[in-house]
């Protein structure tokens, strides 16, 4: 058996494409100051980066903070060191989900429902994906969405049936290739 050195948390993050420059962060705080949703983050973006560098894996991945990133890229546009904090947040999200962390946020369930919709249909089936999400979290929260969903429906903007495209087979074959390590 091959024994692998377990990479440090920092290495794990830095090895994700577009996240390699995390080491060059100067902790200026421009990202936190620019962040559209910073008010909701227990640990704002600058602090998350500091915590990753300090190896505080459980603290970062058990927190809901990163899940408030709305991908507005203001941090990325303004960072003086070209760090791409938005990509780092998404990389952390993926690590959290893959390693079974359960941060207190419903966005994890939303992302999973979203991904499943793509795997099933090849395209996002908005109605089905929202339905799955609300059934899994809080069906009563869906009531709030009803008037909006209804007006979308009457304006022919919310098809009730999925449109599964042929390409989904190719997608799933590609996923299989990735999970099984391909030809290696």
């Amino acid at each position, binding site marked *: 058996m091959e024994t692998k050195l377990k990479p440090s948390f920092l290495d794990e993050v830095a090895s994700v494409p577009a996240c390699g420059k995390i080491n060059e962060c100067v902790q200026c705080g421009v990202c936190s100051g620019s962040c559209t949703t910073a008010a909701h983050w227990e640990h704002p973006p600058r602090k998350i980066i500091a915590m990753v560098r300090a190896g505080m894996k459980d603290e970062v991945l058990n927190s809901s903070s990163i899940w408030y990133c*709305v991908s507005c890229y203001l941090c990325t546009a303004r960072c003086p060191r070209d760090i791409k904090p938005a990509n780092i947040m998404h990389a952390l999200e993926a690590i959290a989900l893959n390693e079974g962390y359960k941060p207190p946020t419903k*966005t994890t369930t939303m992302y999973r429902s979203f991904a499943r919709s793509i795997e099933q249909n090849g395209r996002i089936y908005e109605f089905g994906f929202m339905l799955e999400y609300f059934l899994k979290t809080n069906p009563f929260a869906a009531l709030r969405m009803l008037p909006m969903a209804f007006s979308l429906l009457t304006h022919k903007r919310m098809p009730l049936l999925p449109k599964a495209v042929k390409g989904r087979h190719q997608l799933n074959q590609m996923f299989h290739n990735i999970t099984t390590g391909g030809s290696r």
Partner: protein
Amino acid sequence: MRYYAYYPGCSMEATGAPVEKAIKAIAKPLDIELMELEDWTCCGSSPFSGVDKVKAMAITARVLAQAEKTGLDLVTPCSSCYTILHEANELMKDDHKLAWQVHEALTSVGLNYNGTVKVRHIVEVIYNDVGVEALAAKVKRPMTGLKVACYHGCQQVRPEYGYDDREYPDWLDRISKALGAEPVNYPLKARCCGSSLVISETDMALDLIHKLLENAADNGAQAIVSTTCPLCHTALDAYQSAVNGKYKSHFNLPVLAVPQIIAVALGLDFKQAALDGNIVSPRKLLSPYFNGRTADSDAPAQKAAAG
């Protein structure tokens, strides 16, 4: 006629339907031909990269590989797709382990990607390829006196693809001006609407949408001209009543996607511009432009101009 490979993105088939219809309606008058990719699949978007980065990239790479076969520039109206496609396009050129995994996955289904596709946003195509002067020359129904706040949204201008200004863009303002409308100052024009989390963090997103509507109204806008992104359009249009409910506000700001207002200015009718698909109805606001200068009374004048 200019030809492009066209990738609408999933939302265009549902919540974005009116935007899509308006894009199709103006393509011909603008001398552009959008050739939709066959059997396209979702671009993956940010939720997927928060679940599995390699698979997310593979999804996007399939779209790029399909587009490469056409030899044309790949145009999308969805700002989220635009960002995702762009990012994957850059990453696929890197000599990175993940890129190689994705290349292998593509090979396993008989596809391959050489990194030659140019990813473009349709607003950028209208601005640069069609051009503001050419657009102005085609106007049959000037939108004179209509005060509009031009909402560019975030992912159309960020992170960094040499596209307009990243914080205070003005391409939609220039396009609106070419149509005769009057763009107002709109400081939040490139701030995010939070749409990616509107399902799971509804209150947070409604707060962001509320700020965008308030800022437009405070600056005297009668309508918002939004970018072609179906998510931006839906956030401002379909969620406007939810914002009013939450904040006891009375916003009644029609949200005209830029192809919709172009369609009106080019002389198309209400339905052709897909304005009947808008939830905040622009009928009353736009009636002076249709009435008196409607299709009927326009027709002879148009013929005279054409002949």
